[in-house]
């Protein structure tokens, strides 16, 4: 008894972080708001119902599947909202609403809840759902609306990567920075995406390791492939879904390596696969497949990057000792 107060001894942990899943997810949502607003300006008001359908069906799918499986309800952690939002940003604006809803259901039920819900999924739900939709509804998923054409009459145009750098019809780099190009509704505005990414890094929600190594690797390979043409490098970085993928999808907690060393390997791997697909494959879907493929390798990367506990003998020494014995 000191000063009449009781000495309370509680079990550890004594220091708690204020970070909660809900707070992290809220940060991710906030960081995606600039991209969403840019999308509304670029592709018109139809962005709002597409996003609303995608988010609401994701949340509903999560609610129903948790209910059916008789597990505790997890819609409150907002992770389903994030999945629905990211999926919406990965769809063309002209997508029929029912396809957006199917995408959300695949993401939540098949990719996430079948494997045990949040934190247990081995692949990013939004990216996997996007690939499923792409393989299922090719024509609808490749119907790219011309930016700003919603003001007059909606027309379609090819994406920058399909057109190719320097060809007729390729958008200028300034247009690409502002997002005035064909593509998925959330992937076009480079400025908004970088803004969101910087916010996440500043809030320490994501580590800069994956986006930096991912984009860096793509830049390096494109620099070599483009024989030093910096315009080509910028075109490749801002074209396609690289920025959206690198900042918001490759960094998903449950589907990227734990240690920084692992994250660097993961980022470089994503960069190499993306570049190879873009340079040599006939499909333009580089980022989705790169992230999905690297997601599958995460357990192996994690196993290879287990840190050495302090005080244990070095590997060579151990091998030597074993040889002596």
């Amino acid at each position: 008894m000191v000063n009449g107060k009781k000495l309370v001894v509680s079990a550890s942990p004594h220091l708690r972080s204020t970070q909660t899943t809900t707070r992290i997810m809220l940060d991710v949502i906030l960081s995606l708001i600039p991209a969403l607003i840019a999308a509304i300006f670029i592709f018109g008001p139809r962005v709002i119902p597409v996003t609303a359908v995608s988010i609401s069906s994701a949340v509903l799918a999560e609610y129903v599947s948790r209910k059916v499986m008789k597990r505790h309800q997890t819609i409150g952690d907002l992770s389903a909202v994030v999945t629905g939002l990211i999926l919406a940003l990965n769809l063309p604006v002209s997508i029929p609403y029912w396809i957006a809803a199917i995408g959300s259901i695949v993401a939540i039920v098949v990719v996430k809840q079948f494997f045990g819900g949040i934190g247990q999924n081995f692949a990013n739900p939004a990216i996997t759902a996007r690939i499923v939709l792409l393989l299922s509804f090719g024509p609808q998923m490749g119907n790219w609306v011309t930016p700003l054409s919603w003001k007059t009459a909606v027309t379609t145009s090819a994406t920058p990567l399909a057109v190719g750098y320097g060809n007729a019809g390729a958008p200028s780099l300034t247009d690409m920075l502002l997002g005035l190009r064909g593509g998925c509704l959330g992937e076009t505005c480079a400025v908004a995406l970088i803004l969101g990414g910087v916010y996440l890094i500043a809030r320490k929600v994501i580590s800069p390791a994956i986006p930096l190594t991912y984009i860096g690797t793509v830049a390096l390979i494109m620099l070599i492939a483009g024989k030093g043409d910096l315009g080509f490098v910028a075109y490749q970085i801002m074209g396609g879904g690289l920025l959206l993928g690198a900042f918001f999808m490759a960094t998903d907690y449950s589907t990227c390596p734990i240690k920084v060393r692992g994250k660097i390997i993961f980022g470089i791997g994503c960069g190499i696969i993306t570049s190879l697909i873009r340079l040599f494959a006939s499909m333009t879907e580089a980022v989705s497949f790169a992230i999905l493929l690297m997601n599958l390798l995460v357990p192996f990367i994690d196993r290879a990057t287990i840190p050495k506990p302090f005080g244990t003998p070095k590997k060579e020494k151990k091998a030597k000792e074993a040889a002596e014995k």
Partner: protein
Amino acid sequence: MAKQTKLAKNSEKKSLRKEFTKGLISENPTMRLVLGTCPTLAVTTSIVNALGMGVSAMIVLVCSNIVISALRKVIPSKVRIPAYIVIIASFVTIVQMIVKAFVPALDKSLGVFLPLIVVNCIILGRAEAFAGKNPVLASAVDGLGMGVGFTFALCCMGAIREVIGAGTIFAGAESLLSIAGITGFDGFTLIGENSLFSPMTIFILAPGGFFTFGILMACANKLAERKGKPKAELGGCSACPMAKNCALLAKGEGCEEKEEAEA
């Protein structure tokens, strides 16, 4: 092993009905024993293909079970696997030629998977686990039950994948019905070209096969769980529903797969 010899002795007394019905659900080769997954995933893009595959495999299974069971005392146990394969391959060749002659369209769509029935795990598995130890009649009934179970599972998958993936049902039925002399029916189109929805193509591609198979297996496990039976899992030898019939496990060796999975 003791249980098995007892089973063999009592098998004549036991009703053959049980040998038949076990293959349908409780020991369904694809859903419960997880055998023959290769044709299950590859040919179930339509219900007609699934039916063709299932019936072909069933004919081979029944015939080879009968012959193997009849020869079970002649075949030395050391060379039993090659002997079984020769018998199975003969029947597969016969079936393949018949299909080629009478239903060429089916032969075309099944492709290499028709001759591959030779190495179908279900057929060799039943030969090893049942026909090699039991009398002819019981083996024939066992083969029939397993064959019907296999066909049923394939048709379930085929129906789901065809309806969702292609928007049709019984497409290509004309090739099968033409044997019976019926023409003019070639399936229904559920999702037309101008309808509001379009079919989800991924279901007739390989990933869709895995999705459907996984979901159906989960349902089968759920049903089995309700009846108090163990789940079908790819979790090493002890989890295998064939464990009690496995010769290697009886010797205490187990398959190599198990060690790899646990390592």
